[in-house]
């Protein structure tokens, strides 16, 4: 019995033995890669590719609901304790913002891409005593992210629009000493550090003023989406409000910053 030469009939060109795809399909895939590579190289297609290094302080504004709820519940417990024991322990200020820094390096103009990282930290707490009963509540939050950023400058050197995508890490240090009260909520005593990580996305707008050749000062505003589904201290999930369910930590929020940008024409 003779076997039919299947490949010769099915395709007009002989199939590539190294490719699982038919040759026509391969051409389309190659075309996609070419377009992608061209797109990636687009920012560098000008004769002089500027390398921009940007850094500066930024004020980050956020109201993480899990921490806000914990602080408000604890403040209610402090109010109860103050009225019961005639104390005057100050309430815990809400965590609403922190100071940080952003640093980025980008290549290209008007389209640019690069890498950047952000850091910020914030803390709050209170302390005092009701007679012999000591009260101390301290929370500290630190955040860091590393991101890939893309930006576009509709007015080269003056205005930048950008977006970034990356990975973020956060640590929440929890240090609480609180007496037992006949309340449905009192903060759990202990000292722990909860950690978490997540993806982060951000968008920003920056206006810049050239102050020296290749040096500009900018004002930047943006918004970051960073939702940590859960933080853990070892195997212990963060449950600040003690409802039995792990608390997600939403650190999404806006920032306003000052940016110093140095350009190096390559």
């Amino acid at each position: 019995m003779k076997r039919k030469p299947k490949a010769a009939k099915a395709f007009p060109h002989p199939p590539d033995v190294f490719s699982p795809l038919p040759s026509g399909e391969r051409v389309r895939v190659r075309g996609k890669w070419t377009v992608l590579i061209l797109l990636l190289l687009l920012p560098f297609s000008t004769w002089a590719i500027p390398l921009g290094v940007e850094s500066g302080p930024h004020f980050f504004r956020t109201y993480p609901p899990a921490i806000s709820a914990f602080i408000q519940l604890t403040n209610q417990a402090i109010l109860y304790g103050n009225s019961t024991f005639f104390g005057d322990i100050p309430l815990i200020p809400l965590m609403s913002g922190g100071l940080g820094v952003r640093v980025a390096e980008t290549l290209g103009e008007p389209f640019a891409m690069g890498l950047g990282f952000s850091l910020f930290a914030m803390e709050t707490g209170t302390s005092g005593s009701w007679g012999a009963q000591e009260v101390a509540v301290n929370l500290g939050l630190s955040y860091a992210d590393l991101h890939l950023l893309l930006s576009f400058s509709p007015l080269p050197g003056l205005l930048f629009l950008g977006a970034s995508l990356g990975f973020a890490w956060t640590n929440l240090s929890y240090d609480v000493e609180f007496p037992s009260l006949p309340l449905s909520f009192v903060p759990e005593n202990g000292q722990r550090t909860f950690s978490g990580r997540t993806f982060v996305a951000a968008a920003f707008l920056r206006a810049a003023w050239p102050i020296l050749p290749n040096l500009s000062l900018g004002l930047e505003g943006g918004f970051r989406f960073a939702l940590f589904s859960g933080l853990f201290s070892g195997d212990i999930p963060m449950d600040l409000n003690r409802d039995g369910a792990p608390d997600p930590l939403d650190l999404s929020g806006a920032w306003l910053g000052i940016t110093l940008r140095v350009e190096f024409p390559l």
Partner: protein
Amino acid sequence: MRAKFFFLGMVALAALILGGCVGKFSVKAPEAIFSLRPTEGIAPLTVVCDGSLSFSESSRIVEYIWDFGDGNKAFGPIVSHTYSRGGTYRVTLTVYDDQGRRSSREAQVVVRFPKPVPDFSVPPIPVGTYEVITFDASASYSPNGKIVRYMWAFGDGTSAEGMVVEKSYRYGGAYPVTLSVVDEVGEVASVTKVVQVLGGPGCGS
């Protein structure tokens, strides 16, 4: 120059708007928090439950629903409830805000059973040796229900069980008679009374 100021204003405006709106992006449920006074005691125990510490950041709390854990409920920010029987009860407060959002929180009340009250009669006058004395504990009672066990210690090293028991002493003297009762929930209580027996002491005593 005008363009620069325009863009500066845009950036500042966008940041301020976004910053100011952040708190509104997340829907916040009210928080139920309450105090209990007392959190433990002997039945019947009246507990005052104060939910006025509950709060809602973005709205107003309009309803407080209490579940006392013994099948009873109540409404209102401050209520009281009496537990008639011992046990560990979970008090749950559910608060609703004017947007229909709710949250619950619970706390525990430990109500201990009261002790039974043991009692028995002793002869009002001294009895003689070998004279049979009837000890009757039928005056004993327990607020928790039936008394299931009566235990006697007659003070001479002997003991017996039962609501009504008989006993005679071989030697004269003052004997402390102790009645211990156990009720149906396991609570125990004792009482001791002295019985005077006329006659000489035993050779060994």
